[in-house]
């Protein structure tokens, strides 16, 4: 986790000001950054916030622009908060490649970035990893993002604990971001997410893939590869098998994306090598 520890400040700095708007009109009674269903009462001005990419242009205060040539949106007390939980897969398949752990580093950074963005929006932010990991209920207190960073630094990907049971416990969150490679209990997780989405939650599926998984280096001669979470899965991989592997993997990714979108979730593919802040921005803009 060396890179996350060193890169956290720059990551947090890069996502400062990024907003993660709700995809739906929030029914929440707690005032936040998201449009509320509440009607009738005049919106009480709360504050101005500089316009950022992703904000609804209709919310730009043009009078302020005329006066000050500042582009800002007007926040009113009627905006609701969206409790958000980031669910991070910490299974053994995330510890890849073994030497650099690029998948885990990217996943952890994206999780931290999303938490920071949501926290910046004033939304209660929580964090969860499967047992023996941690569960932090959504909160808005000041040190929450730092706490999440500490938990990330203390977590090492291992084991094969399923995500679906943990997802089932996050019903209090209105928005759930699942950061995973979906190589574990993908079907059960999808089913649980579908249920939550049907109940009005916003589900985000951030699929983390390593470049080495997308495009393995052709071995000079036949190599035996094995699933770190299931050693019974052993395959012979040589030059002739790589195109078949890539084709199968691509088809699976495509079907996964279709399934998650069909469940009402936002699906985003994050590949190692991509800057985590770019992934964050891509996710929150979806």
């Amino acid at each position, binding site marked *: 986790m060396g890179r996350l520890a060193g890169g956290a400040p720059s990551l947090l700095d890069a996502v400062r000001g990024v907003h993660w708007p709700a995809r739906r009109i929030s029914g929440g009674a707690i005032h936040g950054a998201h449009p509320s269903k509440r009607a009738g009462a005049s919106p009480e001005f709360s504050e101005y916030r500089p316009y950022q990419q992703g904000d609804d242009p209709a919310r730009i205060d043009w009078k302020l622009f005329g006066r000050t040539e500042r582009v800002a949106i007007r926040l009113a007390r009627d905006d609701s908060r969206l409790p958000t939980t980031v669910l991070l897969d910490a299974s053994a398949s995330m510890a890849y490649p*073994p030497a650099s752990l690029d998948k885990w580093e990217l996943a952890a950074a994206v999780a931290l970035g999303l938490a920071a963005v949501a926290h910046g929006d004033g939304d209660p932010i929580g964090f969860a990893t499967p047992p023996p990991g941690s569960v932090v209920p959504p909160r808005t207190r000041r040190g929450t993002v730092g706490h999440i960073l500490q938990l990330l630094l203390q977590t090492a990907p291992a084991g094969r604990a399923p995500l679906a049971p943990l997802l089932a416990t996050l019903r209090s969150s209105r928005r759930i971001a699942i950061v995973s490679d979906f190589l574990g209990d993908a079907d059960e997780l999808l089913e649980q997410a579908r249920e939550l989405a049907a109940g009005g939650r916003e589900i985000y599926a951030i699929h983390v893939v*390593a470049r080495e*998984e997308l495009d*393995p280096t052709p071995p000079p001669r036949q190599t035996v590869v*094995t699933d770190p*979470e299931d050693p019974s899965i*052993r395959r*012979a991989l040589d030059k002739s*098998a790589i195109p078949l592997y890539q084709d199968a993997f691509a088809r*699976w990714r495509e079907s996964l994306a279709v399934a998650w979108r069909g469940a009402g979730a936002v699906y985003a593919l994050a590949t190692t090598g991509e800057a985590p802040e770019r992934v964050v921005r891509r996710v929150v803009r979806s």
Partner: protein
Amino acid sequence: MTFLAPAFLLAGLLAAGIVLALHFIVPHEPRPAPLPTARFAPDQPVRAQTRALRPRDLGLLAMRVGLLLAVGAALAGPQVSLRRPRRTLARILLVDRSRAVAQAGEAADSARARYAAGDAVVLFDSGATTVRDQALDSLAALAARPSVPGRLSAALIAALQAASRLRETADSFELTIISPLVTEELDEATDSVRALWPGAVRLVRIAATEESPAPPAVGFDGRSDDPLRIALPPQSVAGAPGVWVRIVRGALDREDSAWARAAARVLVHWPPPAAAEPRDSSQEIIGAVIAGDVVVVAPLMRTTILAAGAGGGARVVARWVDGEPAAIDKPWGAGCIRTVAVGVPERGDLVLEPRFARFVAALVGPCGGRPALRPVEPARLVAPAGAASPRRVARRLIASPEPTTSPWATGLLLVALALAAAEPLVRRR
């Protein structure tokens, strides 16, 4: 370094070679690599491949090979000789000092002329004594033992033992016999023992003692009408000069003993039956008695039981037909005392018969029996296999000395044990 059982070393080398080949030749399944998306690879059979050695494999291979070699070498019984480099030739000199040697000085001179430091000298008569240190001093003090016959068989056995002890000191060995080589020095075992020496033998013939053709003058101490007188050679008074055989029919006294001890003389104590100790209160009549090649078949009385005894150098001169000794010699100073338990009949004409006279002549011979000093044709001894046998015998043909426990074997076994304990640890790593 030599090995007592080199077959074990060869077996260890062979096993090590097999392990070496297995490391390189036997195909192994490739070591698996982690890939979380392995399930998407086609399920095709894994082809075993010959693996290239990695640096840590070399260590494991060296450990296994070393273990097998250490065990093989330990079981092979390594013998490390820390002595000085081997000589080209070492001699074993068999020097005769028996009664067959006319001049002991001649034997000593012949031996000194051939002796070199590190050679073995075996002095032999009826027995053999190996001299390695101060051999020249022993040769200088060499004196023939006129009453003791030589036995070449004992000398040859001593020579074989000496060669075995000298095996690591020379590349080849030569056996030299310095002797008159007469008939009485050979026995039934001589040919068999000689066959154990894998090569020809050098013979340095020295002068033999002259065999006296005339029977010795015999002193007789007994009755004037003793029937034994009839069978004896010309007799003299017991104490006359030139007499070296004395027959005493009565009890021996101190003067008799002193007479025998003083020179190479034979004191024959031949008590008649009346004076003999009864055996179980009765004396037996035995039908025949043998002395050398002379057999007398007659009802003769065994006057007493003689015990040849262990030690003391007693020698049986005559035997009854039932195997019991009839006459025995016991060394006595320079001479010997011969006790005869054959009763001479007072009546009858047995004492007149020539065969009895020959029997008596055998019993009045010199100590150790009448010498058979006829020279032996040396061919059967020098080169039994003919001219093909080399005189110089290679070291490898000499029997190894008795094996002793080698500290090297213990050390090698400990090394093997340590390697065996470490191998699993390295393998797991």
